[in-house]
């Protein structure tokens, strides 16, 4: 149950990775990406969230149940946004 202790170095590497991604998302917002601006920003945000969840929140060491629970919220949020937007996007 108790996790193997993650090394200090790993934590610092994750933090560095997060800072790089932050730079990437700010940088991307200055490029004229048109309709790809939002998907790009969201992809980078997801990558950052994944880093935090996997390492800071120890999801990579957790059992599948905890991982499933962690995904469930996002999955249902996806359902809500997708189905509601399916109405908004096709409304005349």
């Amino acid at each position, binding site marked *: *149950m*108790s*996790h193997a*202790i*993650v090394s*200090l170095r790993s*934590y*610092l590497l*994750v*933090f560095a990775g*997060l*800072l790089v991604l*932050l730079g990437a*998302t*700010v940088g*991307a*917002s*200055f490029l*004229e990406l048109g309709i790809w601006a939002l998907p790009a*920003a*969201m992809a*980078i*945000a997801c990558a*950052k*969230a994944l880093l*935090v*969840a996997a*390492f*800071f*929140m120890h999801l990579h060491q957790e059992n599948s*149940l*905890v991982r499933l*629970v*962690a995904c*469930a*919220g*996002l999955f*249902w*949020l996806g359902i*809500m*946004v997708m189905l*509601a*937007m399916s109405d*908004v*996007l096709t409304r005349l």
Partner: protein
Amino acid sequence: MPADYTEIPEAAFENIEQQRDASKLGMWVFLCTEVMFFGGLFLAYCEYRHLHPDSFAAASSHLSWMLGSVNTVVLLASSLTVALAVRAASLRSAGTVNLFLVATVLLGIAFLSIKGFEYYTDYREGLIPGSSFTYSSSQPGVQAREVEMFFMLYFIMTGVHAFHMIIGITAFIVLIAMSRQRALSLQTIENAGLYWHFVDVIWIFLFPLLYLVGHH
């Protein structure tokens, strides 16, 4: 100074392992509900950004991406210190735990201070929705009412986020006090940490959605 983080299970549990497992699962389920709690706001944001893209871009450009970025760094750093506090707790190093928890609290307060400064700037510029909203623009596709809606969402989303941070900071202050009395369990620190990381993740999404919509 070594600390002993073992404890006796509550009456409902067979043993301490079962209790830790249950408490961690409970925390993750709670975070799930938190995702859905913010979810309604994200849906509102999605719909209105789709309907009023130009207004949202114009409104977003009134926010300082620099202050936002600095705040992101501050919050990410606080996540790091929490992670290190949990690590120290696993290593049974109570002094280090306290050090990192204090750092986290300070970083949290720094974040809220910068946020407060931003709110103040918005107030000065008349961007607070309601009767004091004084925005006007002649750009094509930009309407003051839609800009006001962006700021409404901005204040609600960041406000709810800030409220979560205040709860987190309070929790950490309590943990520091408990730690001084050797009344702190590893599981409690871990759960508080999970909560704090979650608040961080929410910000990771809020930042590009609110600060980086427009072209600068």
